[in-house]
């Protein structure tokens, strides 16, 4: 036996996971050094979806660029749109009417649910639970229909304008929204029953890709991933922007920091978002939907940074204005870009299978990483 082990030669090898791979959620590329199926080293390679959005902003007026923002994170378009207009409003010191703020919250939370449903579905498909995957996507379809009803676009809703929102809610929106929310609750219970208690699913996700609370802070992870690692940090609660201080909702926190915590965190957050939407619809005030904004938007000279809680974490916009109609420089601080920084650290010692599960549970969006 000893003789065999001495003569047994093993070899490490490298494998390109991506950019064209079924489960890298776009064009993420990880170069894995493997020993058998165990990962020895992992490197992140990004940039395959770079569209130069930050540079494009410099050749467009402030209002024009608002229509480009949903393309940054195409799974949570409305929230990117929101983050941008709030930043310009902060620079120009515009006061947004209350009804507009409520509409923003309703659309933003719907978009957050849609984005979280993507994570739930894509985690399921990456673990080959194909039926649960379709359930998630069909639930998302109802929300996209609602978004289309209000904003005119399913994926790229340029609904938020500087000073308010584009249009008021159509008459049929509120009954439709109530129906979608009821369906969504059913669907979440379906997925919960089918996946969350499944022994195979638990063995794939529990204790896999664990991030300790300290490590999460160290690597600057934000959003649901941070909260799944035991830190109750949510901008909507800690530094309430818009009208979030008027709603009664909880910030769910889970301690484990593994894939399963990140997965169930999304289900918990969807339930909280539903609460917010229900309250916002019930207490929707009357009034104008946009502030008085000059026709040509010319912010004063200066710079501004503002951040909101997007679906994937803290989304920040940094704008430098030279007093002209176009931004001098615009930078997007995108949550996915920060979140993937920890991959090389936690991937070491994993199996390829666990790496896929971890990647799925992080909810990265390549549009946001490469911009």
């Amino acid at each position: 036996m000893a003789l065999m082990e001495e003569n047994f030669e093993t070899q490490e090898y490298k494998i390109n996971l991506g950019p064209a791979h079924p489960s890298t959620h776009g064009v993420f590329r990880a170069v894995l050094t493997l020993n058998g199926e165990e990962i020895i080293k992992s490197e992140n390679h990004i940039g395959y979806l770079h569209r130069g959005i930050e540079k494009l902003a410099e050749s467009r007026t402030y209002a024009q660029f608002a229509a480009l923002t949903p393309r940054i994170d195409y799974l949570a378009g409305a929230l990117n749109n929101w983050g941008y207009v709030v930043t310009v409003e902060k620079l120009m010191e515009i006061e947004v009417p209350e009804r507009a703020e409520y509409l923003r919250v309703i659309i933003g939370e719907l978009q957050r649910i849609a984005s979280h449903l993507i994570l739930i579905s894509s985690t399921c498909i990456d673990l080959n639970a194909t039926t649960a995957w379709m359930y998630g996507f069909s639930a998302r379809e109802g929300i996209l229909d609602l978004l289309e009803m209000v904003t005119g676009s399913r994926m790229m809703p340029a609904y938020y304008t500087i000073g308010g929102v584009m249009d008021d809610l159509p008459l049929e929106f509120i009954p439709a929204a109530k129906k979608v929310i009821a369906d969504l609750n059913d669907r979440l219970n379906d997925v919960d029953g089918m996946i969350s208690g499944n022994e195979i699913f638990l063995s794939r996700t529990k204790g896999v890709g664990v991030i300790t609370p300290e490590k999460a802070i160290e690597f600057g992870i934000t959003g649901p991933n941070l909260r799944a690692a035991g830190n109750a940090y949510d901008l909507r609660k800690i530094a309430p922007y818009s009208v979030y201080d008027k709603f009664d909702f909880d910030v769910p926190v889970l301690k484990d920091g593994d894939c399963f915590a990140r997965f169930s965190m999304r289900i918990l957050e969807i339930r909280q978002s539903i609460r917010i939407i229900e309250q916002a619809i019930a207490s929707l005030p009357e009034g104008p939907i946009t502030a008085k904004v000059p026709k040509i938007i010319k912010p004063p000279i200066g710079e501004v940074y503002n951040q909101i809680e997007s679906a994937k974490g803290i989304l920040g916009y940094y704008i430098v204005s030279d007093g002209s109609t176009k931004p001098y420089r615009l930078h997007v601080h995108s949550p996915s870009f920060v979140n993937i920084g920890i991959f090389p650290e936690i991937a070491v010692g994993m199996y390829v299978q666990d790496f896929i599960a971890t990647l799925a549970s992080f909810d990265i969006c390549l549009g946001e990483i490469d911009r």
Partner: protein
Amino acid sequence: MELINNIFISGANLIRNILHWIGFGDVFTNLIMSVVYFVAIAAVVTFNIIIILWIDRRVSSFFQERLGPNRVGPFGLLQSMVDAAKLIGKESIIPDAVDKVVYKAAPIFIFTVTMMLYALLPYGQGMSAVNINVGILCFAAISSTSTIAILMAGWGSNNKYSLIGGMRTVAQVISYEIPLCFSMLGVVMIAGTLNLNEIVLSQGKVWYVFLQPVAFVIFIISALAELNKSPFDMMEAEQEIVAGYHTEYTGMRFALFFMAEYANLFVLAGLGVTLFFGGWDGPFLPSWMWFMIKTYLMILFLEWVRWTLPRARVDKMMQFNWKVLIPISIANIFVTGIIIKLFHII
């Protein structure tokens, strides 16, 4: 009634008589008859693959609230035909870096193995192409050789994803073959024969699924592993290793792997029916019809499991096999043996 029941056997006898009438000797007649059997089996294989593919698509779409293929032919029945025609028309690319001989031989090899298994199944009363006394043993022996074909494909492709897929296959299929054979052993002990037709006949009073429920559960689990169906589809896990051992295959070569997989589904479902559900035995309808009905119900059950469960973890799967399935299956054999002995004493 009697005519429909024996339609295939009388057909075969008719051909045999015609050959004798023409004046062929016994040896030559047998030779031609084996070609006839082969063609019949090939027809069964192809026909079943097309039906199973259609069931796979329609059933999964029913589970997942989709429509599924419904444009080509009634209820989309001809969709699989169109796909097959498309795959035949595709260029079969052979990458430069592959080991050409192994690469080309693998798909032929894997399909041949499957065809051989079809010859052993009892499709109806007296309807086995090859009726031998060690049917189960032969079945286990032949089906385990498909591992080699998959390893050939994985190694010959000279692709890292293929290699991982091939290696996973060897580990998985060889391990799960043990509980699969042990679960068959319980049935063999009660029936007292290895002949598949005699096992069917011995189930006249009660199906073995009631006498051997533990063996049946073990059989289903290991059959899923043998078939590469979820939750045990590690070897071609598309989310992890792209397509596993057939990553580098295109056109008809890929189609052969694909068809072998679905053909295997029918074979193992048919074996399960033969061993545990009385095979072709049943009232009123012709025996071959009973076999088909039972087998397709079994396939539906396997599809149901497959579309519901996520994929297991490789290491957990192996632990489950060696630490749970094999001990239970051995215990099952012991308990069965003791009970049989007690019955004999009484």
